[in-house]
């Protein structure tokens, strides 16, 4: 067990690609850290540098306070779980799991004992004599985990370990991974591009974009207080709604309507002239008819026609199309491209709201929608900064 420190770590590939730029991270002993970001943002490269599979171009990597830049993977005492599992096909499950121990020259009895122990934890005991070819995806995944835990390394690195599993198994394995990490208390760096995994698994989440860290924090903090447009749009499902906005004499003008700004936000916006982007999460809307008078004050109302209503049982997702310009910023385009919705044709902006289950809104209805103005975020479209952050926090 160990802490891992990345000090201005940079990776430039020979062809000039700057995959990771001056990355600073401090991973505490026993921490479960998640690296998340869209495809190609440098997550795997970062992990491979920690593992020793890629050279570090500049900067320093310290494990347990010791500089390990020039150490071979085998001398770093770190285990890795690959997205492809990378099981040795010519060896049985037992041999696969025993492989690192054999290389460490442990005695036969000790190897057997450790393998049996790990197999029991991962419920692989019945499969020990099978070859990987005869295992299901989930079983292969568990063998890959088993091979990592048998030798009690200083840290685990996992590169999208669950992305090859089907949705149901992924949820199941997520809890397996989480429990295992809690039980072993081993420092873990986990790469994913699934924001749900990021939110549910980690102690802290690092959001990366184009080789640079956007924000580091506990999942809830990232969700409630995103630093910038990118983080705001990346975290949350369905994602935050964005609209272009302008401010004049304390009122915010958006395609949804004119809203009064609260005292604090008025101050924050004062220094900012020009266009803004307003961001509102789906759960900060509500069917206006269900709002009690006591809280109605903190928000504003507008009307819109519902395109689609999805009832989830516990609540309802209601989709609207709002006429007018779409919010545009480099960050938003990148996020849209990553989700594969970059060029969806639409005459306006989409708005997703989460209403309580009691809402009677139906498709085609013109609904009165209430929005909680205390929870909105305002972003500067030129650099994506969240200007409503207050001492690092909103509201």
């Amino acid at each position, binding site marked *: 067990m160990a802490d891992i420190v990345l000090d201005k770590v940079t990776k430039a590939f020979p062809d000039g690609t700057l995959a990771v730029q001056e990355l600073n991270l401090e991973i505490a002993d026993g921490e479960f850290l998640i690296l998340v970001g869209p495809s190609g943002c440098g997550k795997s490269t970062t992990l491979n540098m920690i593992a*020793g*599979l890629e050279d570090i171009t500049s900067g320093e990597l310290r494990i347990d306070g010791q500089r390990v830049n020039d150490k071979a993977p085998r001398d770093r005492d770190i285990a890795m779980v*690959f997205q492809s599992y*990378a099981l040795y096909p*010519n060896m049985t499950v037992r041999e696969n799991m025993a492989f690192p121990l054999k290389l460490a020259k442990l005695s036969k009895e000790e190897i057997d004992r450790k393998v049996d122990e790990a197999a029991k934890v991962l419920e692989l005991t019945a499969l020990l004599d099978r070859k990987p*070819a005869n295992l299901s995806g989930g079983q292969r995944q568990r063998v890959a985990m088993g091979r990592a835990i048998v*030798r009690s390394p200083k840290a685990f690195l996992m590169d999208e370990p669950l992305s090859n599993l089907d949705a149901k198994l992924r949820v199941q394995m997520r809890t397996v991974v989480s429990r295992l990490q809690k039980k072993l208390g081993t420092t873990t760096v986990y790469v994913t591009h699934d924001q749900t995994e990021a939110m549910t698994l980690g102690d802290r989440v690092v959001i990366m974009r184009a080789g640079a860290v956007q924000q580091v924090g506990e999942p809830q903090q990232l969700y409630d207080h995103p630093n910038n447009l990118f983080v705001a749009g990346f975290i949350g499902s369905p994602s935050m709604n964005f609209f272009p906005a302008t401010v004049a004499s304390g009122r915010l003008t958006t395609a949804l309507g004119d809203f009064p700004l609260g005292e604090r936000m008025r101050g924050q916006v004062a220094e900012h002239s020009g266009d803004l982007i307003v961001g509102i999460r789906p759960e900060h809307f509500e069917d206006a008819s269900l709002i009690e008078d006591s809280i109605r004050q903190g928000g504003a109302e507008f009307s819109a026609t519902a395109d689609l209503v999805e009832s989830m049982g516990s609540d309802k997702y209601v989709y609207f199309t709002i006429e007018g310009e779409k919010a545009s910023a480099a960050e938003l385009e990148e996020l849209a491209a990553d989700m594969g919705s970059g060029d969806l044709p639409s005459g306006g902006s989409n708005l997703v709201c989460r209403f309580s289950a009691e809402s009677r809104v139906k498709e085609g209805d013109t609904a009165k929608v209430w929005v909680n103005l205390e929870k909105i975020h305002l972003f500067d479209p030129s650099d994506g900064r969240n200007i409503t952050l207050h001492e690092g926090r909103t509201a």
Partner: protein
Amino acid sequence: MAVIDQTARAKWRWSLIDLVVIVFALIPVLWITSLSFKTPATITDGNFIPREWTLENYRNIFSTDQFVRALVNSIGIGLISTLVAVVLGTMAAYAIARLDFPGKKLLIGISLLIAMFPQVSLVSPLFEIERSIGLFDTWPGLILPYITFGLPLAIYTLSAFFRQIPWDLEKAAKMDGATQGEAFRRVIAPLAAPGVFTTAILVFIFCWNDFLFAISLTSTERSRTVPAALSFFQGASQFEDPTGAISAAAVIITVPIILFVLFFQRRIVSGLTSGAVKG
């Protein structure tokens, strides 16, 4: 029903075609086998099944030093050439499949060029060169050209095999604590084994079958291989036709090839890498 009918008919058609091909390929082999068991008197009688069986031909070829010596030459030269070509080819193919180095395309191009080069045009220059440097009619005199032509073949087949091995396995081995050497030896090599054996068989057969170099670059029993030696066979007397003896020798030299293939066949298990990675 129609579908079943069709597949049944397709099956029949393919079986028939297979049969024709097999018969076409095997009849000369069976014919020469039959000749090798015939007595000199009946050798020209045109019967497929010998009317008088004899082992005389086999006894004859093994009683002369000529054939045994050639057999030793063939086996020795073939094995050494194969070993060298496969070892060098494995290293080259590993580098080609694994690394991006300057001149990689050129290397592949040159080896392809060598493989395509008409061997006939090389025979006279090689003859002159080998005579002047004293390699003519020696084992190395044959081993060298065999390696030259066997190596491109080895590089080609082996790099195809290496490309199939997921490189994540090597990374995983390194993470598990293996050195580069251990990763190759304990993880990559076992997976590449079927490819290495397949290549070895191909290269060995190439060396074993060669007649052109064998006849041009040798002059005595010292290094003459079986295909060349066969053409020097004579009958027991000057007037006797050596057909029986040649047939017997031809049968004998197919045996090692069959053994070689049968021996390695068990190792050429396709799909050995399945289960390493998902998707």
